[in-house]
């Protein structure tokens, strides 16, 4: 009953969101587009990093790979094929990163992903300067922001669906086991290296696709724009604010932070990274399990108190 109801409600929300461009102007659609983009990024990030606690700092590396692939190929290939190529490149890079680090302790993975965006940015810059002889590309497509928005919305729905299915299946359990104790997980028969690799690859491909789909929004692309570390940072902070271990956590975190970010970058363009940095530290300190984790904790405590109270009342009455 409840499942059917929430499914209907969800379908209604997504239908409303899909219809939104007909009612909102170009500005409104652009805003919603950015929001859905970050919801997808944060959800994709949390898909792997949430339960396993392998903190990936490479979000913008994959995002940038997607965007740059589109900038290079959009005139030569049909747009769906460009997305496929982008996804494949993202997949190969993810496998490379995963195969070399995920069999080792988590900290190697963090270090590798930490500098990855900068590495790829420098290689792309080097390639553009030395091989193609230009830095920066123009990107003109014959569709408007609403098409970009619909593609992103579809990707967002797919990402949440994957998150839901993983959580419900035994693989959700597998990821929690990995997050808790990999040695026990291995001894229970779980091929931990393969599971981590597969999920990191899935998460990275989605992130690559977000970059690829959003690329036309810029019209002009250069490495410093699409490999901007702020994107990795925002994704991480959104997922953590809502609660990275929960399906809806990243969504809950992404909405207010996106609004805040838009407001900050409009009003305090020079100071937003300081403010966000402080906010981020505050979240780690105050809400280590995110808003949803916090609510859940307090809700159970509240309920426990209440039932204790009603027990007492019953006893007094009897």
């Amino acid at each position: 009953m409840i499942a059917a109801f929430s499914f209907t409600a969800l379908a209604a929300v997504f239908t409303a969101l899909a219809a939104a461009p007909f009612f909102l102007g170009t500005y409104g659609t652009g805003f919603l587009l950015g929001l859905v983009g970050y919801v997808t990024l944060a959800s994709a990030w949390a898909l792997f990093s949430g339960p396993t606690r392998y903190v990936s700092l490479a979000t913008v590396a994959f995002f940038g790979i997607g965007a740059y692939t589109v900038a290079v190929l959009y005139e030569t290939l049909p747009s769906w094929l460009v997305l496929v190529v982008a996804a494949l490149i993202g997949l190969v890079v993810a496998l490379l990163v995963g195969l070399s680090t995920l069999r080792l302790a988590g900290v190697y993975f963090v270090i590798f992903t930490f500098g990855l965006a900068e590495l790829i940015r420098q290689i792309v810059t080097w390639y553009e300067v030395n091989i193609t002889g230009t830095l920066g590309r123009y990107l003109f497509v014959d569709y408007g922001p609403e098409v970009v928005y619909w593609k992103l919305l579809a990707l967002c729905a797919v990402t949440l669906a994957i998150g839901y299915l993983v959580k419900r299946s035994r693989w959700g359990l597998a990821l929690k086991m990995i997050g808790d104790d990999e040695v026990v997980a291995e001894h229970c028969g779980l091929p931990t290296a393969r599971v981590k690799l597969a999920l990191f690859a899935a998460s990275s491909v989605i992130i690559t696709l977000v970059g690829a789909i959003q690329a036309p929004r810029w019209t002009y692309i250069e490495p410093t724009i699409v490999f901007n570390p702020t994107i990795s940072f925002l994704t991480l902070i959104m997922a953590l604010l809502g609660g990275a271990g929960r399906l809806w956590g990243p969504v809950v975190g992404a909405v207010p932070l996106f609004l805040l970010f838009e407001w900050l970058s409009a009003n305090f363009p020079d100071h937003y990274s300081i403010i966000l940095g402080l906010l981020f530290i505050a979240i780690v300190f105050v809400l280590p399990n995110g808003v949803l984790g916090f609510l859940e904790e307090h809700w159970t405590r509240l309920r426990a108190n209440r039932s204790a109270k009603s027990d007492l009342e019953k006893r007094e009455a009897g």
Partner: protein
Amino acid sequence: MTLTTTLIAGLVLGGTYALVAMGLTLQYGIARIMNLAYGDMIITAAFAAFIVQALPSINPLTGLAIVVPGGFVFGYLVYVFLLSPLVKRAPNQAALEVDSILTTFGLLFVIQGVLLVLFGSNYTSYTFLNVPVSIFGTTVAANRLIALVLALAIGLLFYALLTRTRWGTALRAVAVSPQSAQLVGINTDRAAAIAFAMGTALAAAGGTVISMYQTFTATGGVVFTMKALIVVIMGGVGNLLGALTAGLVLGIVETAVSTYVDPGLTLAATYTIFLVVLLWRPEGLFGRRVR
């Protein structure tokens, strides 16, 4: 460039890497904090040196006497206010690692943001002893030679402090086994705070040295963190002499790549080395820990 010139330039760069990597290995090996804002601390020190050397009657060398203690105090405060509460609440090492990674990642953006507001995003530099000196048949700028000598001198000084004094032995005991260190009466929280502060002081020394011969920018911290981390892993976590050797190796390789291949590919070279280390000897090239 001749081979000798490349080698000397490589040693200068490598000496600096070794110096900063020693600081990071103290922070990770003893204080158990994976500090992703480390490179930004280096850059902050470079800017501090830039300001200090502009003061009358102070040159970058005497400036070290201000910047390095400043780094120590800053590191101590960061540990006490930001990291110590996390250490106390962490149920285990893995949880602390995640928390410290996230916190210092946030700190990275705070420091970078402050530097951007104060200094903008342009490359900054100043001239200090930019006079040619002849050595081994080639000419090198005096500031580079001084940078190399300083890096090695400061590095060896800290090494001596850690290996030749009682106090240094206590710190290393914490690195090997925090529980047993506590049993023999070492205050591990204090030891960690001091190790973290010393690491930051080394970062400050590194930043000052870098500012003598290189341009730097507010957003350049990530690359320094990355290189220091790679040197630490190559040398073996907690291994000071390993960090020294690995730092020199990385400096020479990078200089060779930028001289003979392309300056735009130095980070790619660094990453290639990192990959080889990960696949071949993830525990480091030179054994495990300082004994």
